[in-house]
């Protein structure tokens, strides 16, 4: 099973990401031990230059992580014919339940890396770089997560047995199934749809308010709303948006939309959702940093950019995911 070319590529990619992070981690340890911003010594100068190496390593690791996340979903779709009963990527995931964990860790890593890069960006723009210690301690915490990703992937792929009989999205996401996912999918459209639009509305109002006012409370609320938006949107994608996207009353797969038959519509949908979530979380997340004067200055100039990017993400997400709902011929709710 491991010798599938896509799986080889994924494992190779994850090993490289881990290597990049290990190099970065080595530098991080040296920085944590010897950093002294007031020193004019050659060591300090050397360490400062190495911070650029670390941020570049992390940027690339982040980019590679996004690529491998999509390659992972792509591969799941590619290998599903090997499993009896699997009709799409969901079936491949069910063939070995570790797959769901891999997906979770990969998404988590993308978010974590994005946060790290955002904080790093802020810090590198200040003269006194007050966040050096926090940055490099969290960097060290990222390494086990990357290693976990690699290990889980290995477990998943080596545990796959062709011919295994699995269930697919049809049965997994159907109302009869058990577990959280089926419960979500089983949500009647009459309830899921208002919930989704209520959360979108709440999020949008908070976002626009945050653009206008710089209150701490607004940012905290926006943070909560964006986390809510992320999960409610995923649930909505499974429970009713997918039905509109595929124009079929029973196909509830969140992965098929990434395929060519659906004109790769999934990419802008997920990109939009990711941007809307990430950039709306950043102001709330970075707000505690505003106590440092130099960071506060940087935050003042970065926050509006983030909020606008979040707004753009939201619009992209809504337009691409709800397009078919408004203009498509499929009607779920008869009015």
């Amino acid at each position, binding site marked *: 099973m*491991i*010798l*599938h*070319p*896509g*799986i*080889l*590529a*994924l494992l*190779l*990619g994850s090993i*490289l990401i881990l*290597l*990049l992070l290990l*190099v970065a981690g080595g530098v991080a340890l040296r920085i944590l031990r010897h950093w002294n911003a007031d020193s004019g010594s050659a060591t300090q100068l050397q360490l400062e*230059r*190495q911070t*650029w*190496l670390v941020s*570049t*390593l992390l940027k*690339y690791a982040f980019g*590679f992580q996004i*690529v*491998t996340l*999509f*390659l992972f979903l*792509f*591969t799941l779709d*590619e*290998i599903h*014919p*090997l499993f*009896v009963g699997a009709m799409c990527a969901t079936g491949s995931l069910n063939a070995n339940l570790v797959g769901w964990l891999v997906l979770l860790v990969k998404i988590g890593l993308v978010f974590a890396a994005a946060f790290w890069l955002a904080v790093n960006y802020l810090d590198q723009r200040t003269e006194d770089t007050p966040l050096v210690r926090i940055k490099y301690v969290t960097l060290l915490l990222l390494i086990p997560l990357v290693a976990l990703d690699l290990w889980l992937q290995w477990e998943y792929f080596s545990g796959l047995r*062709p*011919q295994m009989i699995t269930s697919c999205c049809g049965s997994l996401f159907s109302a009869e199934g058990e577990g959280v996912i089926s419960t979500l999918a089983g949500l009647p459209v009459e309830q899921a749809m208002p919930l989704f639009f209520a959360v979108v509305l709440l999020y949008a109002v908070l976002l626009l308010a945050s653009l206008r006012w710089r209150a701490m409370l607004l940012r905290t609320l926006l943070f909560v709303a964006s986390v809510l938006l992320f999960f409610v949107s995923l649930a909505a994608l499974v429970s009713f948006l997918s039905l509109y996207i595929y124009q079929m009353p029973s196909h509830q797969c969140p992965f098929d939309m990434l395929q*060519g038959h659906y004109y790769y519509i999934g990419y802008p949908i997920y990109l939009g959702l990711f941007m809307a979530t990430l950039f709306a979380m950043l102001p709330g997340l970075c707000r505690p940093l505003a106590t440092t004067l130099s960071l506060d200055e940087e935050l003042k100039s970065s926050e509006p950019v983030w909020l606008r990017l979040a707004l753009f993400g939201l619009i992209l997400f809504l337009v691409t995911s709800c397009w078919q709902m408004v203009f498509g011929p499929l009607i779920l709710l008869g009015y």
Partner: protein
Amino acid sequence: MILNVKLLEYSLSSLWRRKEKNIALIIVYALVIATLGSVLLLTHALKTEAVTTLTAAPEIVVQRTQGGRHELIPVTYAETIAGFPGVGKVTPRVWGYYYDSLIKANLTLVGVEGYHEQLELLEGRFPQAADECVIGAGVAEAFGPQIGDLLVLEDSSKRRSEFRVTGIFRAASNLLTNDLVVLQEAALRDFFAMPAELATDLTVQVYNPREVSTIAKKIAYFLPDSRPITREELLHTYDSLFNWRSGMMLAVFISALMAFLILAWDRATGISAEEKREIGILKALGWETSHVLGAKLREALLISLTAFIVGLLLAWLHVFVLGAPLLMPLLKGWSVLFPTFDLTRVVDLYQLAVLGCVTIIPYLACTLIPAWKAASSDPDDVMRG
């Protein structure tokens, strides 16, 4: 935004100024990509070919085994199977292999009755008399006859039989029809000296795809000496086989990639004195470490993308235009499985994504540290001479 464009422009200028070195690097890189790409494109094309063929295949094929070997199956079995609920038509097929010592090739001789629905694309018409035949494109090429000519075959008792060619297959997928000679069933039984109450195998049509495996189990239970093979099973076997093969070869060629990466690392680390001087001057005059780093990484990206496009084109030409002459010897297993045929020209996004991941990501990762080393020189080196 302006910065990005300007750094890109600088990278292009820098690459151009060292074009001999960079073109050499791109050529080697493109060759590595072409090798890996050929493996992926070829296996994918073969897989597509097999899948296209198999979708036309019957849901279940029933063979009889005796002593673990494939034996002729009694035609009466067909009636037993046709009696199961959910089963559609059951057709006995007559077919066999024929080795022609003159052109040293294996042909597949089939009786027209068992194949009617599957073989549609035909130039001419199906055989209507005992001395008529329809042949595949590969057979036509090897023996040379056209429609209206005679095809001469020798049966097991060295008796010469002549068949008039009434049609030639021009199938979208050559895989199935390439080495085919289609005769009337009676003529074929006569040629192979096969008794009328036996057939080579049976094809079973099943109405509901969900019932295929149940019916296969039933057949094996009621006719213990039979071996039902479902289409799904065939598909899985092909799929695993191709994935395994291409993965295997990919693993072998990744070592070639490694060798290249060592070269790339070496190239990237050993930047020329002039380039070092240039970076020193720019840093002294106000470039930041991140700017130099950005320019260097853009260079790596430009080299990667150029090599990827060139390599992909080479792989495409190699596999689809030239027929993968450099890989075929390594694929002995396949050439036994299939006769030569033109590959369907398919390239899908997934193969590109895998190829990109395997070649571009390692190269970029390898250039990171050398690029940073080049970028983190002392700005006052210039002043101190």
